[in-house]
C-alpha cells in the first residue's frame, strides 16, 4: 500500500525554484569557504599556492591538501547521498527511505568495523567492497522484514530501526572488547569530513559519476514505478529487472560514502524531499536537482560547522546534519496524519491457544527456573559453582540486585512493548519509538559532559529528568493528532537519531566517562544497587497490577481508530494514558539497564507466537517473556565469557535481533 505522505500541494510549500535554492546555498557556502581560505592564503596567491603546493609553505599545503579536498568531498558526499536518497525513495515509493533509515549505513559501518578488528588486510584492497557487502546485507534484511514495495513507509522505517539496533549491538560488543580502537571507530562513525589529501575525492568522484549516468539511463522505467508494481507491469515494464539495478546503485553509492567519510545522517532523506517541495516534480528533474542540492547543502553544513570551534576541534559534520535533519523529519511531513490508517504490520499467530492462562503459568515456571539458575549457578576461579541456602549472603550481595533489576526491567519492557504494539497496531513498534529511552540517554550524555565524575544518584536524577522532559515534548508534539502512532514513531526516530549522533561524538572525544556511557547504553546490570533494583521492582509491580486497567483499550485499539471511536472510546484520552504509562515504564527500565529496549520488541512477539491474543494474557505473557529474556541474558552474560561479562541488553539484542528478523521474514 503506497501511501503518499507528502503534502498534496507540494509546489506551493517552498516558493523558490530548485535552481534558486541550490544557487543560494552554494553561494553561501562559497562565501564561507572563501573567507576560510583567504584566512589561509590571500586570494592573489591562490594560483601560486595551487601550482607550487608541494614545494610551498604550510598554509598553501593546507590550502591544497586539506581545505580544497574537504570542500570537494563535502560536495561529492552530499551529491551522492542526495542521488541515493532520490533513487531509494523512487524505487521503494517511500518518502522515508534513505541510507540511514534503511540500515545501509549501519551495515556498511559494521562490515568495516569487523574488517578493521579482525581482517584489517581486507581494508587495504577492498574497503569499498567490504562496505558494500555489509550495506547490501543490511538492506536485504530490512527489505525482507518490511516486505519491500508492498510495505508502508513506516514499516520500512521501523524495520530499519530493528536492523540498526541489531547491527549496532554487534558493533557495540565488538568495540567494547577492543577498546583501543574505540576513539578511532567513533571518530569515523560520527561523520567527519577532515581531509588529508585527494584520495577520498578520487575514490568517490568516479563512483558518483557512474551512479549518476546509470540513474539517468534508468529515468524512464523508474518514473513508471510511480504507478506501482501492477500499474507499471500492465504498461509492459518488467520491474524485476530495473528495481534491483536501481537499488544496487543506490546502496553501493551510499556504502561508498560511508567507506569514504563515515555516516552522514539525514542528507539522503531531506534532500529529495526539499527538492520536490521546491517544485521539481518529475523524476528527471529530481535526479538532476537532488545531487546539486545535496552537494550544496552538505558543503554549506560543513562550512558552518567549521565556523564554530568546540575546544580544539569542531562538531562532526555528520552530527550536525543529524541535529538539523531530525527535526526536519517532523516538520516536513505534516501530511502523514492524513495518510491511510496505520500500517497493520502484524504477525498473526499460527495457532491460538484455547487456554492462554495455562501457557502463562507455564511461562511463569520457566521464569522461575531461569531465576533459580541466575541466582544459584555461577562461576568462580575454580569453575562452576552452585550456591546453596548457606551462600545466601553471597548471592544477595552480588546477584540479587542484578537479577531483580533484570527481572523488573524485562517486565516493564514487556508490558510497555505490548502496549505500544497494540496501540499502534504495528508489530514493529517498540518502547524506544516513544523516544523515552533516547531522552533518558540524552540525560546521561549531558551528565557526562557537565559533571564528569558523577555518581549513581546523579545519574538516576539526570536520566529521570530527561526521560520526563522528552515525554512531555513527545506528548506535546503529538497531542494535536490525538497521539497518532505515526507522529509518535517519527518523533521517536528523530530523537533517537539525535541521541545516537551525540553519543557517538562524545564517545569519540574520549572523555573519561566514555566506557561508562558505552556499557550503560548496552544494557548492563553491573552497576545496579539494591536501591535502584527495588525501585524498579516497585514500578514493575505497580505496572503489572495496573495493566488490567488498560486491557479493554488494548483489545479494541488494534481494530483501528475508527472502530475504536465508534465503540465509544475517547481515542485521544486512551492513547494519551497508554503513552504516559508506557513512557513511565520505559523510563523505569531505562534508568536501571540503559536504553537498549530490544526486549520490548521481542517479548510481545514471543507471547503472540505461542498463541496468546487477548490483551490481558498478552500483557502478562509478554511481561513474563520479557523478564525471562532479561534474566537469562543477565545470567548468560555473566557466564559465557567469564570472568568478562556481556551486558544483558546487548546479549538479548545479539540473540533476539536475528531471531526477530527471521521471525518477521518467515511470516506469511
Amino acid at each position, binding site marked *: 500500500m503506497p501511501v503518499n505522505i507528502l503534502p*498534496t*500541494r507540494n509546489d506551493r510549500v517552498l516558493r523558490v525554484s530548485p535552481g534558486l535554492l541550490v544557487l543560494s546555498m552554494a553561494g553561501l557556502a562559497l562565501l564561507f569557504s572563501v573567507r576560510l581560505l583567504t584566512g589561509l592564503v590571500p586570494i592573489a596567491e591562490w594560483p601560486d599556492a595551487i601550482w607550487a603546493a608541494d614545494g610551498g609553505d604550510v598554509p598553501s599545503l593546507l590550502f591544497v591538501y586539506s581545505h580544497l579536498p574537504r570542500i570537494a568531498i563535502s560536495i561529492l558526499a552530499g551529491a551522492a547521498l542526495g542521488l541515493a536518497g532520490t533513487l531509494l525513495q523512487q524505487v521503494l515509493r517511500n518518502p522515508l527511505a534513505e541510507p540511514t533509515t534503511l540500515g545501509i549505513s549501519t551495515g556498511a559501518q559494521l562490515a568495516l568495523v569487523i574488517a578493521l578488528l579482525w581482517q584489517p588486510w581486507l581494508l587495504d584492497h577492498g574497503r569499498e567492497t567490504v562496505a558494500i557487502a555489509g550495506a547490501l546485507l543490511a538492506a536485504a534484511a530490512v527489505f525482507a522484514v518490511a516486505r519491500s514495495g508492498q510495505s508502508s513507509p513506516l514499516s520500512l522505517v521501523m524495520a530499519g530501526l530493528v536492523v540498526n539496533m541489531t547491527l549496532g549491538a554487534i558493533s557495540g560488543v565488538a568495540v567494547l572488547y577492543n577498546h583501543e580502537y574505540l576513539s578511532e571507530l567513533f571518530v569515523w562513525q560520527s561523520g567527519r569530513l577532515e581531509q588529508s589529501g585527494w584520495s577520498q575525492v578520487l575514490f568517490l568522484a568516479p563512483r558518483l559519476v557512474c551512479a549518476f549516468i546509470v540513474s539517468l539511463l534508468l529515468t524512464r522505467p523508474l518514473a513508471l514505478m510511480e504507478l506501482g508494481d501492477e500499474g507499471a507491469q500492465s504498461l509492459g515494464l518488467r520491474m524485476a529487472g530495473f528495481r534491483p539495478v536501481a537499488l544496487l546503485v543506490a546502496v553501493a553509492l551510499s556504502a561508498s560514502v560511508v567507506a569514504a567519510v563515515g555516516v552522514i545522517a539525514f542528507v539522503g532523506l531531506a534532500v529529495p524531499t526539499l527538492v520536490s517541495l521546491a517544485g521539481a516534480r518529475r523524476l528527471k528533474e529530481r535526479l538532476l536537482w537532488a545531487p546539486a542540492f545535496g552537494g550544496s547543502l552538505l558543503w554549506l553544513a560543513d562550512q558552518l560547522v567549521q565556523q564554530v570551534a568546540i575546544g580544539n576541534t569542531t562538531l562532526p559534520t555528520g552530527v550536525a546534519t543529524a541535529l538539523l535533519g531530525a527535526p526536519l523529519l517532523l516538520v516536513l511531513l505534516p501530511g502523514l496524519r*492524513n495518510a491511510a*490508517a496505520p500500517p*497493520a504490520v*502484524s*504477525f*498473526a*499467530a499460527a495457532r*491460538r491457544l484455547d487456554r492462554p492462562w495455562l501457557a502463562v503459568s507455564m511461562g511463569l515456571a520457566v521464569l522461575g527456573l531461569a531465576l533459580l539458575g541466575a541466582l544459584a549457578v555461577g562461576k568462580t576461579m575454580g569453575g562452576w559453582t552452585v550456591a546453596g541456602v548457606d551462600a545466601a549472603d553471597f548471592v544477595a550481595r552480588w546477584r540479587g540486585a542484578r537479577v531483580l533489576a533484570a527481572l523488573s526491567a524485562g517486565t516493564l519492557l514487556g508490558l510497555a512493548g505490548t502496549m505500544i504494539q497494540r496501540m499502534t497496531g504495528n508489530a514493529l513498534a517498540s518502547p524506544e519509538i516513544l523516544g523515552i529511552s533516547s531522552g533518558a540517554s540524552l540525560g546521561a550524555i549531558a551528565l557526562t559532559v557537565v559533571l564528569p565524575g558523577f555518581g549513581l544518584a546523579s545519574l538516576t536524577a539526570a536520566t529521570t529528568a530527561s526521560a520526563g522532559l522528552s515525554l512531555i515534548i513527545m506528548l506535546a508534539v503529538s497531542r494535536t493528532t490525538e497521539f497518532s502512532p505515526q507522529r509518535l514513531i517519527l518523533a521517536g526516530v528523530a530523537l533517537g537519531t539525535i541521541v545516537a549522533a551525540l553519543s557517538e561524538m562524545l564517545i569519540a572525544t574520549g572523555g573519561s566517562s566514555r566506557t561508562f556511557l558505552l556499557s550503560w547504553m548496552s544494557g548492563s546490570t553491573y552497576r545496579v544497587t539494591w536501591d535502584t533494583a527495588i525501585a524498579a521492582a516497585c514500578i514493575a509491580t505497580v505496572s503489572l497490577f495496573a495493566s488490567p*486497567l*488498560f486491557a*479493554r*483499550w488494548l*483489545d*479494541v485499539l*488494534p*481494530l*483501528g481508530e*475508527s*472502530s475504536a*471511536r*465508534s*465503540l*465509544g*472510546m*475517547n481515542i485521544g484520552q*486512551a492513547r494519551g494514558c497508554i503513552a504516559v504509562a508506557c513512557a513511565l515504564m520505559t523510563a523505569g527500565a531505562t534508568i536501571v539497564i540503559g536504553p537498549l529496549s530490544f526486549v520490548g520488541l521481542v517479548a510481545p512477539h514471543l507471547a*503472540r507466537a505461542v498463541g496468546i*491474543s*487477548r490483551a490481558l494474557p498478552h500483557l502478562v505473557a509478554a511481561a513474563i517473556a520479557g523478564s525471562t529474556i532479561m534474566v537469562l541474558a543477565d545470567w548468560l552474560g555473566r557466564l559465557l565469557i567469564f570472568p568478562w561479562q556481556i551486558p544483558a541488553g546487548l546479549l538479548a539484542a545479539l540473540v533476539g535481533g536475528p531471531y526477530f528478523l527471521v521471525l518477521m521474514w518467515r511470516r506469511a
Partner: protein
Amino acid sequence: MTVCLSVREASGVCAAPCFKVEGVSCLVGGRQILGPVSLALKGPQVHGLIGHNGSGKSTLLKILARQQRPSHGSILYDGVALDRLDSRIFARKVAYLPQQTPFAPGLLVKELVAFGRYPWHGALGRFGSDDRRKVDEAIEMTGITAFVNRAVDTLSGGERQRCWLAMLVAQDADCLLLDEPIAALDIAHQIEVLSLVRRLAKARSISVVVVLHDINMAARFCDEIVALHSGKLLAQGGPSEIMTPDSLRRIYGIDMEVFRQPGGGFAALPEPGASGQGAPR
C-alpha cells in the same frame, strides 16, 4: 422534502432519535468534498444513502458517526449538538460500520461481537450477564453461530461483514450507520442482511442510515432515500419519489428505465443504449 413531522420540530427536537444536519460541509486540502448539506433524518426508519462514487456518502456518514469533524455547520442528534456528547454515551446511541472493516489479526468472532458491549461496560466495568445475553442475541440474529469460534481474519468477505454487523447489533444503539454493508455479499446474503437490518429497525424501533450502491436494494429495503451528488444533497424522499427515470438520471447521470414490480416494488435498469458518458466524475 420535509421529514420531521413531529410537533416538537419547532424546538429542533424530533420525536424519535434523529439527526438534524445544518449547513455541514467538509474541506480537505482546500477542496470542498462535501456540502454544504442540510437535512434531517428521523427515526425509526431505514434511510438509504445513495450517490455516485466520490459523491461524499462515506464522508457524510463519518461526520454523522463523529469519525470526522465537519469544517462548517452543526449537527444535532436527538436535539443535542453532536460534539457535546460524551463518547461512550454517543456510542450507546449511534453505531457505525466503516466501509472497510479493519484487519483484526487473531481475533475470534465471539470476541469481536463482545467488543460491541464496550460502550456499556467501558474500560473497567464488568462484562455482566446482560452483556452476555445481548452478544448471544446478536450472534443468533445475524446467523453467525457457526463460526463464533473462528478467527475473524480467516472468514470470507461476506462472513466477515456479517460478524461486524453482529458487533453493531450487540452494541444495542438507537441508530446504525452502515457504509456499504452488502458490498461483499452474494445476492442471497444481500437480501438476508438488509432484511435483518430492516427487521432490527422495526423490532427495536431504531433508525438506520445505510449507504448502498444498488438502487434496487435501496428502493426495496429503505423507507426513505437520500441522494448525494458531488457533495451536495440532490434529493430526499420515499422510494416512489426517487425511483423515476428523471431523478435517477440526475443522480447517476445515465438514462434508466424504471419498472413497477407486481408486489408494489420498483426495479430500475440502465437503458439499453446508455453509455455512462454522463456519469459524474
